[in-house]
C-alpha cells in the first residue's frame, strides 16, 4: 500500500454503511499512550524523537505485523501526501503540519491509524462508519493490548496512562462522533442541542468553519473527562446521549419536510442543480451544498444519489485529494475549476 493507493479507494468510514449513518457520519476512538523510558514530546530532542520513532516503528511491526498496519515515516512524504492523510482523517492537522521526526501506521482498510510523535508518543485511532462505539473500542483495545506486550507504557497506579497534557491522563480515551445536523441548524434548534451537550461535559465543535458559524452542518461531539471513569463508563454514557441527538435531528427533519415542504425541496434541488452544473466551486460551497443534498437524499426528495457518492464527493473534493487525482500541484483558483468538473462528472454518471 502506498499513499497513492488511498486515492483508488475510500476508507471504511466513507462507505456510509454503518448504523445510523443518516445522521452519524463516523465514530472515532483515540487512545493517548506514552513510553515509560522516554521524555514526553515537549522535552524530546531531535535525536530522541528519531530514537522514539525507530523504536515504536519496530515494535509496531513486531506486535501487529505488516498485514495489519503499514508505517509511513513523514520524512519520506510530500506536503500534499501529509495533507491527504489529514483530509482522510487518518492524522490530526497538527500531525500533518508539524515538524520533526514523526509518522503514522495505517491499516489497509483505513480503520486503524497510529500516529507516532504527535503530542504523545503514540496516538492510537480507530475510525468507523456510522455509530459504532462498541466495535471501535473493541478494535482499539485489542491493538493496545497487543502493543503492550512489546513495549512499556508510562503508567501510574493513581493517574493511569500518563500523557503530555493532563487533560488526557487516565484512560487517554477520546471518543469523537461526527454528526450531520442540517435540520437542527435550519430550524435554529442547534443552540439548544449544543448547550445541553456542553452542560453534560461534552465538547462540541463544528467540523468546518469558524467558531459559531460552522459550515456543512457537521458537528463533532467528544468526551472531555478521561480520568476517574472507566473506558466502559465513558462509552456507555455516550451510547446513551448520541441516540437522543440522532432522534432529535430525525424528528426535526420530518417536521421541516411537513411544515415547509416547498422551502425544503427548493433548497435541496438548488443544491443539486448547483453541484451538477457549477463551473467554479470552492471547498466551503461544496461542503455547504453537499449538506443540503444529503438532507434531500434522506427525505427522499432526490433518491437517486447514493450515500457513498455523497461521501466520496465530500472527501475527494478537498485540496490534496484533487491535486493527487490530477497528479500535480494546483493553485486555489485552479482547484475550484477542477473541483467543479469532478463533481459534475460524478453526478452525471448517476
Amino acid at each position, binding site marked *: 500500500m502506498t499513499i497513492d493507493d488511498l486515492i483508488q479507494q475510500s476508507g471504511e468510514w466513507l462507505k456510509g454503511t454503518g448504523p445510523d449513518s443518516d445522521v452519524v457520519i463516523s465514530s472515532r476512538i483515540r487512545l493517548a499512550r*506514552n513510553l*515509560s523510558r*522516554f*521524555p*514526553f514530546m*515537549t*522535552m524530546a530532542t531531535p535525536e530522541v524523537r528519531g530514537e522514539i520513532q525507530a523504536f515504536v516503528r519496530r515494535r509496531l511491526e513486531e506486535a501487529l505485523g505488516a498485514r495489519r498496519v503499514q508505517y509511513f515515516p513523514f520524512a519520506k512524504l510530500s506536503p500534499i501526501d501529509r495533507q491527504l492523510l489529514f483530509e482522510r482523517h487518518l492524522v490530526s492537522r497538527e500531525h500533518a503540519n508539524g515538524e520533526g521526526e514523526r509518522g503514522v501506521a495505517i491499516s489497509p482498510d483505513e480503520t486503524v491509524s497510529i500516529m507516532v510523535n504527535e*503530542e504523545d508518543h503514540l496516538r492510537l485511532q480507530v475510525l468507523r462508519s456510522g455509530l459504532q462505539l462498541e466495535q471501535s473500542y473493541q478494535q482499539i*483495545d485489542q491493538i*493496545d*493490548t497487543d502493543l*503492550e*506486550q512489546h513495549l*512499556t*507504557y*508510562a*503508567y*501510574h*497506579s*493513581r*493517574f*493511569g*496512562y*500518563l500523557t*503530555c*497534557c*493532563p*487533560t488526557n*491522563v*487516565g*484512560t487517554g*480515551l477520546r471518543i469523537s462522533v461526527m454528526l450531520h445536523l442540517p435540520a437542527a441548524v435550519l430550524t435554529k434548534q442547534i443552540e439548544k442541542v449544543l448547550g445541553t451537550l*456542553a452542560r453534560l*461535559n461534552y*465538547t462540541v465543535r463544528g467540523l468546518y468553519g469558524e*467558531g459559531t458559524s460552522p459550515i456543512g452542518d457537521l458537528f463533532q461531539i467528544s468526551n*472531555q*473527562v*478521561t*480520568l*476517574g*471513569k*472507566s*473506558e466502559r*463508563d465513558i462509552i456507555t454514557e455516550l451510547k446513551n446521549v448520541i441516540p437522543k441527538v440522532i432522534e432529535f435531528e430525525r424528528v426535526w427533519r420530518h417536521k421541516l419536510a411537513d411544515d415547509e415542504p416547498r422551502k425544503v425541496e427548493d433548497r435541496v434541488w438548488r443544491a443539486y442543480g448547483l453541484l451538477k452544473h457549477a463551473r467554479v466551486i470552492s471547498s466551503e460551497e461544496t461542503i455547504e451544498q453537499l449538506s443540503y443534498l444529503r438532507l434531500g437524499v434522506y427525505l427522499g426528495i432526490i433518491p437517486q444519489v447514493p450515500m457513498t457518492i455523497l461521501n466520496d464527493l465530500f472527501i475527494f473534493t478537498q485540496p490534496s485529494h484533487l491535486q493527487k487525482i490530477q497528479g500535480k500541484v494546483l493553485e486555489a483558483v485552479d482547484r475550484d475549476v477542477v473541483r467543479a468538473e469532478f463533481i459534475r462528472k460524478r453526478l452525471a454518471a448517476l
Partner: protein
Amino acid sequence: MICGKCSKNHATVHVTEVVNGVKKEAHLCEECARAAGGKFTFSITDILANLIEPPKAGGKTVEATAPRCPECGISYTQFKEKARLGCPNDYEVFKAGLLPLLEKVHGSTQHAGKTPHTVESVIRKETELVRLKRDLDSVVKTEDFEKAAELRDRIRTLETELNKGKP
C-alpha cells in the same frame, strides 16, 4: 481596572467566557475590545495555565519549593506556562500542583480504567476495588440492593486477595 491587553487604558469591557466548564475572564479597554472584534476565544493552554495555581505547601508556594524534575529538567513554572508536562516522572514531582488541577478538569484524581497487563496484578486489583466501591455508592443511592450486595461480595473477595499478598 487597567486593560489586560494594552495595560494602558482603563478597562471598560468585561467578558466572561465558559469553555469546557472553566470560567475565563478578560478585562479590556474599548479599543482593544474592538480590535478583538467581539471574539474572545481562549485556547486550552490559556485555560489550563490559568488553572494551574501555585498551591500552598507549608506556607510557601509549590513553585518556590518544588525542585525541577530530575529526569527531564522542567520546572513547575515551565509546566504552568505551557500546560504540558515534560516526562512521566513529572506526575510525581508536581503532584501537589497537579491534584487540584485534575480535580477541576476531570472531577477526579484517581484512574478507574484499563491497566496494562505488564503492571502487577495487585495494582489492577486496587483499581478494580476503587471502581467497585464507587459503583457501590451509586447503586446504594438508587436503592438497588441486590446489585449492592453483589458488589459488596466482590469488594470483600478482592480485599481478602489483596491482604493475602501483604506481609
